[in-house]
């Protein structure tokens, strides 16, 4: 069974989510083992416009399934169509966003296929694929082989370059929605409360500024200006979240969000194992902490031992001075 199928994700504004480009890169890397070509599947309430964005990546075809019941994502409505379309592929892959992680194991179960989640890499061994996955909160990597005829996988976005358009124009083909199972009638989308922030999304940001408990109730007062100067998302340690200084979904760590930005600035974070598990794949790590013995300095590329209440505003001012107008 040849070929790979990439499941695209549509953002709230109806456009293709940038994260999708990591799954395309994953599929392209896997191609030598699965038959040399890939297709893309887009599902949504108004998916045709999004499908048009994906015709330039060298896919055999872009399959588009448009249906009112797909306007709000639920795995129960999405999985049957993906499984139906995916039956004739050797590999079905999406990016490991919260949607991908919710959806793809359900697709795998529908096909009784094995699943490799949150893959950091995929390699080709002859005609078979090897998936490299983080385990033990990033303290180990396992190279995994799946033995079912169809493989289902998700790609960790930070580990794959965003695919770039390669020209050409893939044909767009409409696909009918497959009949959902009984579960679909018993789930109802109620609301999506987006975090109101001018900052980029934590897992997608190029720069992340994270704060620890040491910031106390001045968490945002201190970090916002720096994050703004760097165009960064704001994260937090578990200690800061537990103390109520930052909301739960800001948590970076083993049990929170895993991030791997180009630049990670840890402010007043001591560097508990649980936090480090969530950010140690960042390209460059900066630590600012007044305790020179804090474990965070063991993994930081650049460490500044200083009182954060003085150093952070000074850093913000220095950035403004050296990089005028951003």
């Amino acid at each position, binding site marked *: 069974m040849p070929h790979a199928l990439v499941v695209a994700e549509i953002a709230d504004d109806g456009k293709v989510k940038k994260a999708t480009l990591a799954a395309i890169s994953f599929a392209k890397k896997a191609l030598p083992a699965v038959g040399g070509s890939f297709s893309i599947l887009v599902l949504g309430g108004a998916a045709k416009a999004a499908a048009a964005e994906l015709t330039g990546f060298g896919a055999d075809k872009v399959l588009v399934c448009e249906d009112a019941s797909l306007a709000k994502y639920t795995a*129960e409505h999405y999985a049957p169509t993906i499984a139906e379309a995916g039956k004739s592929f050797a590999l079905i892959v999406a990016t490991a966003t*919260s*949607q991908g*992680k*919710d959806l793809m*194991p*359900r697709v*795998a*179960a*529908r096909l*009784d296929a*094995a699943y490799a989640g*949150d893959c950091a890499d995929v390699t080709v061994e002859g005609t078979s694929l090897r998936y490299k996955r983080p*385990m*033990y*909160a*990033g303290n*180990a*990597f396992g*190279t*995994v082989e799946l*033995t*079912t005829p169809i493989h289902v996988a998700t790609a960790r976005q930070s580990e794959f370059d965003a695919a770039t358009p390669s020209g050409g124009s893939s044909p767009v083909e409409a696909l009918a929605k497959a009949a959902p*199972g*009984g*579960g679909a009638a*018993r*789930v*109802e989308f*109620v609301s999506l*409360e*987006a*975090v109101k922030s001018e900052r980029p999304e934590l897992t*997608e940001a190029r*720069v992340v500024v994270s704060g620890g408990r040491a910031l106390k109730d001045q968490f945002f007062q201190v970090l916002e200006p720096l994050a703004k100067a760097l165009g960064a998302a704001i994260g937090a340690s578990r200690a800061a979240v*537990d103390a109520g200084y930052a909301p*739960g979904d800001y*948590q970076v760590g*083993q*049990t929170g969000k895993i991030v791997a930005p*180009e*630049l990670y600035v840890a402010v007043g974070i001591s560097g508990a*194992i649980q936090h480090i*598990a969530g950010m140690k*794949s960042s390209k460059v*790590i*900066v630590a600012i902490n007044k305790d020179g013995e804090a474990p965070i300095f063991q*993994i930081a*590329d*650049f*460490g*500044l031992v*200083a009182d954060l209440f003085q*150093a952070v505003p*000074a*850093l913000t001012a*220095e*950035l403004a001075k*050296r*990089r005028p107008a951003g």
Partner: protein
Amino acid sequence: MKVLVPLKRVADPDNANRIKIAASGAAVDTTGLEWKTNPFDEYALEAALRLTENGKAPKQRLGEVVVATLGPKECEQTLRSALATGADRAIRVEATDDALDGRLVAHALKSLVLAEKPDLVLLGKQAVDGDSNQVGQRLAELLDWPMATFAATIREEQGALLVGREVDGGVLTLRVKLPAVVTVDLRIVAPTSVYSLHTDQSAHKYGDGVRFAPLPAIMAAKKKPLDTKTLAELAPGVALSTKTLKFEKPAARSAGVRVKDVSELVDKLMNVAKVL
């Protein structure tokens, strides 16, 4: 409400950086690390207990919580501690730890669900050893039940649950009609995260985190029912489909340089690391 909570024991996650990998790369060595209940499963148990009581009188059970695990005899310790915390009954499915994968576990749990007929299966979003994050979703599909993964809040309604899910960039709320599968995230154990129909939301706040078993309960747990089943009866003919060929440690990060002030820091970021 009857809730089934599948639990997994894992090597002490607070010391996961101390795991060793055999030189051959063939296996992870957790020698010296204590077995603990997977934290996300502990949170699921706490949520299940909150759904089967009225908040004020936790001893007065208003539903049933059945805990289950797959593994060797030693795993009964994990079940006993769940029973001491408040679960009513336990089931151990005899299995060898390294002869399991997410697909097989989901098939076994499906059979268990069909036999136990719970209204809800509540489990951690992932086990912190394999970090697979798939059993809940697979189980929901095999049962053709609705699911809500990564739950941060649960409000019981008549015959349904209103679940707030932690997703990228916000909170997505779903209503799932029972029976359903719900997997939980960290925030589910916050003081106002879970309310059953019996609990007065305006008047009751839970303690932060999971509850601990009082000593008499640990003694009493030894008398609570613990049944044993086998993988062969629950998932006949299902073979492993995931093989880990090699384990390796991530590339170590070494400490970099100390800078004397913010000016030097900006210099380094602009000219050495070139990230600005």
